[in-house]
């Protein structure tokens, strides 16, 4: 699919950047005229993915989170969130709703479930020791507010 527009940001995996990241992506997404609900969905999905980088990928350390967002022809939003953290050994297990590797920090284990249900598609590629790439897509519009 043709890329109509693109943006990239990268930032240090500090928790105060969670708000920055979801706001930046939703400001970009606003260019394809989404409804209020689409924006809320996108903000939430991005927040989940970025939180995973901070809480899990770069646990006990600090690294760079890189986000690429594209508006594709047909008004489809593409978001890729990439880290070079510890990676996920068992992606299938990590994606199971309510599974968490950090129950004592009150993590609900719902990050991937939220991304999956709020976006049209979600793909997770990960390699232990090298990092994780989360890709999400969502068609914008076609729905009335």
């Amino acid at each position: 699919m043709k890329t109509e527009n693109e943006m990239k940001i990268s930032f240090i995996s500090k928790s105060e950047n969670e708000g920055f990241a979801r706001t930046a992506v939703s400001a970009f997404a606003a260019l394809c005229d989404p409804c209020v609900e689409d924006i809320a969905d996108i903000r939430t999905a991005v927040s989940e993915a970025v939180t995973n980088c901070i809480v899990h990928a770069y646990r006990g350390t600090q690294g760079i989170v890189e986000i690429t967002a594209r508006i594709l022809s047909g008004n489809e939003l593409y978001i890729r969130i990439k880290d070079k953290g510890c990676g996920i050994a068992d992606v299938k297990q990590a994606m199971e709703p309510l599974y968490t590797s950090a129950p004592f920090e009150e993590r609900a284990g719902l990050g991937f479930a939220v991304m999956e249900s709020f976006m049209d598609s979600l793909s997770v590629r990960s390699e232990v020791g090298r990092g994780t790439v989360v890709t999400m897509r969502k068609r914008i519009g076609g729905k009335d507010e």
Partner: protein
Amino acid sequence: MSVKILEEENRTVAVLSGEIDHHSARGIRTEIDYAVREKQPQELILDFSDVGFMDSSGIGLVMGRYKLMQELNGKVIVRNPPSHIKKVMRLSGIDRLAAISSGEEGVCRK
């Protein structure tokens, strides 16, 4: 993000405002737990009327307070969550642990 704690008879109301994510959840948790342990109320009301954003960190927050209130044989009521927050709550099934109330007083179990 801010939390305002209101003490009423037998209940503690935590009025939340701003955005709830992993970054802000810790501070909110500390403030609520301090008030609850001090007062030992029968009901903890989490008022979401002024919360503009919440991701699944907010679910962890509600779940954790549910466990705390269970230790005290009390309950948690989630008051007035805006629609996009209700959507996250429904996905998590948290509405089975904490009643979601949409008015000031009335509690409607879905």
